[in-house]
């Protein structure tokens, strides 16, 4: 059953590639909005991870009808439907945080924020 080689697992490899690309954007890029885009790429790869195992060759969309007997698995569709809506809610919250950080620090680059924090700490250290 699980003895197949690479061709049978091509869908998983694409998923893993997208997932890792998202992870790379999140780790390597300092811009907060870019990080959030990376996070949503990661998220879509998880959709793919859930949906692809539910597909059956020759199956149709899971809408019952007398003409069809083979349907793809509806359960992952339901779970991912929920995940998409939750995903956009978290994206909106993250963007709100980024906007707020921009107002407080004047930048959304991680390095500049850290530099500003360190500068503030140095000033406080001199005072005390």
């Amino acid at each position: 059953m699980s003895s197949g080689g690479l061709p049978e697992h091509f869908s998983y490899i694409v998923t893993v590639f997208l997932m890792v690309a998202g992870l790379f954007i999140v780790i390597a890029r300092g811009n907060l909005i870019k990080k959030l885009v990376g996070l949503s790429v990661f998220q879509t790869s998880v959709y793919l991870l859930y949906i692809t195992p539910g597909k059956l060759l020759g199956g149709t969309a899971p809408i019952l009808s007398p003409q069809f007997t083979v349907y793809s698995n509806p359960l992952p569709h339901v779970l991912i439907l929920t995940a998409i809506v939750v995903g956009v809610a978290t994206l909106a919250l993250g963007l709100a945080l980024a906007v707020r950080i921009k107002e407080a620090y004047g930048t959304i680059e991680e390095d500049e924020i850290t530099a500003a924090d360190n500068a503030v700490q140095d000033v406080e250290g001199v005072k005390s």
Partner: protein
Amino acid sequence: MVLAVLALARTRNLFAVVVLSGAYSFLMATLLVALDAVDVAMTEAAVGAGVSTVLLLGALHLCKSQEAKPVRGPWLPLLLSLATAALLIYGALGLPDFADPNAPIHQHVVPRYLQNEVDVPNVVTAVLASFRGYDTLGETTVVFTAGAGIIALLRRRKPKGEKEAHDGK
């Protein structure tokens, strides 16, 4: 789609990044149609490519739209990502083959879902509203919390913040 993601990682103009991520979402929706997940594809096209892009553009309007040059080299994250990829692919080789009808995912509760117990021909709707209704309750809680958080963060600011909070729902 893979190319779109690679371009995403390379591009430093954030406006281009947002447009590319919208295109990526549409490609993902197309792929989901090919995988028979029509409901998910519709949601992804509307929410992923539509609302997310609007939200990102709104945030870009309030922030600078050019990313700074990275100060550190990309090699450590790249190495980490490749190591993760190798581990994940090694793990994925143990999963059932693509479209294997005997895979455990097709054997557990799904045959019962497909018997049309609640008299709704669209099984996805039936499962969402009937069998797994509590999921939607949890989802609503999350969306409500996110909306409340956004309002708390952006209140007593420009009216733009209010608009974003409403888009979140």
